[in-house]
């Protein structure tokens, strides 16, 4: 018994309690007896107090709490029983265990003693081990009691904390059974719902939150409840009005099973804000959609206009050109020098106008989201076509065209033809005094093919690198037959193919035009064309 008690104590809370000595009171009118008791109890290392009379004992009981009182029965003035009676009559010492020490084994004494609340009798002569053992039991008991008292205090403190948290919470907190029966609410609940706290107890939480459900019960056997995520449910006030509530349910275990804490937050402002955001977003989307339609319409109108303009301009200017040529052929002999020059200007500029309109048309073809199909294109054949259309220019300029073996790629052939044609003809057109040499090659880069067209022509100053890709931008005077749209066509074509065009050049050292071209597998076209053709 002793060992069991001390074992459980030492296991659980002994380290914290051990240092606290327990008070034991020994009462005997014989000083020698007291000294003997003191000697016997010394090994327990507790705080032993001594009293030589019942009166002394009573006085000590006023100021101290004892784990046990050893009381000699036979004493002058107040005897042990009388002293015990008085000790018991006081509230403080009502439950203090009393051991009587007596030399007589009389039943009468025993009954009287037990009647007075004695817990035990020890008969003289006292066996030290027995006394030690009995007193030790009371020491342990006292420790247990202390522990229980502390736990009760702790519990009370926790409860107070819990109440404080509950009351201080910004949300209405409702504690219910798993079926929703309200057991506890905080004051926020009163103000939020308009019911008095007392009126709510015992009613069902569904009166407040009609759609309330107990959090999911995971694996019934183990009866674990899982906290439900925050949900938004309608809540009803006492006056019948509704408001949106944000609800978090978290269950916790108690002796009887499970309770559920439901935190309720009035989400009215949040919902309003959300609605406002949604409304603004919708409005924004609507505006973007309208703007897009407008833009698409104006883009289409612009495209049609550009197309018609380039096309319709070509027609009359071609006529002007033809007829001015005809006129100059038929009357050359009748004209003087000045008139001939005038006629030549008309021809020159009509010719240029015609080229510009043609270039514009090509540019529109290159940049338009057209119907040209992505197919497998052999770049070597593309180059062959290009060189045959440029035959005259090549022959006339004596240009040397070198070409590496080029890949077969997935592309739009028309655009590749335009690209190579413009880049090569530029190389010839803007040649230096040397024989034009143009080298075409390709390189497999990280995300596609990189093609290059290198010439030994005039070269371009880096500050013009961006400028030259603009529509009708020219660096050279009209006598160079360029229209200023060739590179704009190249840029539009490359961009439609999903690539990029750039150059390296310096005046006097030729130019290298590069363009990259995505290397698409057949399967990728479907998904990619939407981007590329945008």
């Amino acid at each position, binding site marked *: 018994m002793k060992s069991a008690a001390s074992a459980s104590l030492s296991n659980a809370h002994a380290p914290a309690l051990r240092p606290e000595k327990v008070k034991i009171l020994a009462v005997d009118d014989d000083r020698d007896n007291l000294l003997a008791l003191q000697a016997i109890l010394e090994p327990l290392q507790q705080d032993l107090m001594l009293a030589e009379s019942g009166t002394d004992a009573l006085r000590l009981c006023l100021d101290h709490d004892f784990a046990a009182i050893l009381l000699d029965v036979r004493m002058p003035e107040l005897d042990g029983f009388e002293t015990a009676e008085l000790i018991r009559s006081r509230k403080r010492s009502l439950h203090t265990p009393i051991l009587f020490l007596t030399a007589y084994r009389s039943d009468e004494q025993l009954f009287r003693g037990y009647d007075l609340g004695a817990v035990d009798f020890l008969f003289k002569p006292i066996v030290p081990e027995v006394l030690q053992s009995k007193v030790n039991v009371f020491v342990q008991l006292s420790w247990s009691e202390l522990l229980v008292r502390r736990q009760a205090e702790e519990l009370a403190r926790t409860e107070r904390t819990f109440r404080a948290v509950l009351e201080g919470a910004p949300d209405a907190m409702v504690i219910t059974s798993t079926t929703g029966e309200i057991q506890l609410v905080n004051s926020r609940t009163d103000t939020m719902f308009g019911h008095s706290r007392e009126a709510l107890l015992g009613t069902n939480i569904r009166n407040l939150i009609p759609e309330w459900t107990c959090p999911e019960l995971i694996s019934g056997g183990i009866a674990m409840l899982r906290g439900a995520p925050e949900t938004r449910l309608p809540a009803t006030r006492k006056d019948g009005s509704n408001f949106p509530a944000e609800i978090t349910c978290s269950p916790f275990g108690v002796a009887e099973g499970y309770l559920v804490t439901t935190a309720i937050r009035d989400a009215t402002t949040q919902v309003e804000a959300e609605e406002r955001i949604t409304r603004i977003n919708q409005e924004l989307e609507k505006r973007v959609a309208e703007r897009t339609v407008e833009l698409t319409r104006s883009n289409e109108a612009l495209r049609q206009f550009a197309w018609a303009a380039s*096309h*319709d301009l*070509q*027609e009359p200017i*071609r*006529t002007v*050109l*033809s*007829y001015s*040529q*005809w006129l100059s*052929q038929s009357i050359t002999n009748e004209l003087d020098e000045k008139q001939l020059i005038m006629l030549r200007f008309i021809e020159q500029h009509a*010719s240029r106008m*015609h080229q510009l309109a*043609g270039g514009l*048309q090509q540019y529109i*073809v290159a940049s338009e989201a*057209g*119907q*040209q199909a992505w197919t497998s294109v052999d770049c070597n054949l593309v180059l062959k076509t290009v060189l045959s259309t440029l035959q005259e220019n090549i022959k006339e300029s004596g240009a040397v065209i070198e070409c590496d073996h080029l890949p077969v790629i997935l592309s739009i052939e028309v655009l590749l033809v335009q690209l190579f044609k413009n880049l090569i003809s530029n190389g010839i057109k803007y040649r230096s005094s040397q024989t034009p040499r143009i080298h075409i090659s390709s390189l497999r880069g990280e995300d596609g093919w990189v093609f290059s067209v290198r010439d030994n022509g005039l070269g371009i100053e880096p500050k013009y690198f961006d400028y030259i890709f603009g529509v009708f931008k020219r660096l050279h005077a009209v006598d160079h037959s360029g229209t200023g749209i060739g590179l704009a066509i190249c840029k539009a074509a490359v961009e439609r193919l999903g690539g990029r065009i750039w150059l390296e050049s310096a005046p006097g050292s030729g130019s290298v035009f590069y363009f990259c071209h995505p290397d698409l597998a057949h399967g990728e076209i479907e998904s990619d064309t939407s981007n590329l053709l945008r």
Partner: protein
Amino acid sequence: MAKSNQIRRIFFAEDNVADVVLVREALERQSLNCELTAYPNAQAAILAAERCGTDGYPVPDLMLVDLNLPWGHGCDVLAAAARNPALNSVRKAVLSSFVGSPSDVEKARRLGATGFIMKPANLEEFLDDVGRQIARLLESSSAASQ
């Protein structure tokens, strides 16, 4: 020899009189004995195409159609011609200042156009090339009809 003396009829849907004059000049250079009838807009050309083969509207040896016409489109004229059985075996060609958008060319081809002549900007090219190409079309058309 006999062929060149024979009068060949050319149906010409063309709104630009300047081009009609140029084509006439080109035909003259080829020493072709032709009767060129020009229709200045799509509606006039459609009407004529529908009537071909009836009294007073002889079937031409060649139909030349410009795609860009006022009051319609060259393809409408080709469509009208395709509906007229009398024009079934007549050679049809597009004569345009530019090749046209790929879809237009494809449409014209489906409607029976077999020749595509581009009007060059240069006078000499116009007079030589266009004349030569028309002559070739006339030859193949008479070969086909024989």
